[in-house]
């Protein structure tokens, strides 16, 4: 073993370090540059509406029953044709999700008969107190397609009798 050997090894090792100076940086500059989430990513929930602006949620509480963490609270009330929120008999008058309890498993999505609740792609959920983590219906519901489609609204009698939309292809 010559005297030079440790020096050669040192240069070889530092050469590896030096080579990384010219590599492209791999870091995502997070708050400025956001990485796309995957198509099946499950983030903050959204309550959907039909194209005519009526809410899809019919207040059946199946999501609350499916929730393994008991994070969802639903209270249903009766629809009338003068004050209609959703098609069918009932709508969710209270709909709350505790974002800190929710484990984003997507069981609520699976349980929903009208595909009203969908897990979106927002993951930026930090709270300074626990009370503000409970999202009420107003925060979860997506905005109306156009301004005149707000709920509740007055509709013609006998049009919206079905709460679950008719299935076009039963094999689907």
């Amino acid at each position, binding site marked *: 073993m010559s005297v030079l050997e440790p020096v050669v090894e040192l240069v070889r090792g530092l050469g590896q370090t030096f080579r990384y100076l010219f590599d492209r940086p*791999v*870091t995502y500059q997070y708050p400025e540059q956001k990485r796309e989430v995957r198509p099946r990513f499950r983030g903050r929930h959204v309550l959907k509406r039909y194209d005519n602006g009526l809410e899809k949620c019919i207040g059946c509480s199946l999501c609350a029953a499916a929730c393994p963490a008991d994070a969802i609270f639903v209270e249903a009330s009766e629809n009338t044709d003068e004050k209609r929120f959703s098609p069918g008999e009932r709508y969710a008058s209270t709909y709350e999700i505790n974002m800190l309890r929710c*484990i984003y498993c997507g069981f609520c999505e699976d349980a929903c008969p009208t595909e009203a609740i969908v897990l979106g792609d927002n993951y*930026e*959920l930090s*709270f300074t107190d*626990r009370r503000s*983590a409970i999202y009420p219906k107003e925060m979860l519901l997506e905005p109306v397609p156009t301004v005149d489609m707000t709920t509740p609204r007055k509709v013609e009698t006998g049009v919206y009798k079905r709460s679950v939309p008719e299935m076009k292809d039963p094999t689907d």
Partner: protein
Amino acid sequence: MGVEQKLGNMGVVTTSLETAVNWARTNAMWPMLFGLACCAIEMMAAQASDYDMSRFGMELMRASPRQSDLMIVAGRVSKKMGPVLRRLYDQMPEPKWVIAMGDCASCGGVFNNYAIYQGVDELVPVDVYVAGCPPRPEALIHGVLTVYEKVKAEKFKDLAKG
């Protein structure tokens, strides 16, 4: 707590010193290793080169509470771990902050049972709760930035009162 007790009410000196001190605090806030469960994996990912928390002054995770300013409780805290967590929190020097990372540390999450603390705020004062099971590294960084906003808004006057 040193300087803030003496300089609580000196007008422009206090406000500019506040800005300087809070700037310093937010640019070198060392977190303490407190990985207890799966959230720790995401915490490691946030430290690694893809997300790199060193960009926010979190150069390295300290294993010693005496050298850390921020406790990131990542994971579920069992009844047996509780006293340990409190003891480590008490050993951290003032000023100190706590992030409850993930559902379990924030409120028990899916583990609503006899063995798990229903939120780490039963033990220590929590500044920021980060939701997610586990949160993405970005979500943790968002929580850290929320802590920074809170620290930047701190006033000596309020700190001196305790």
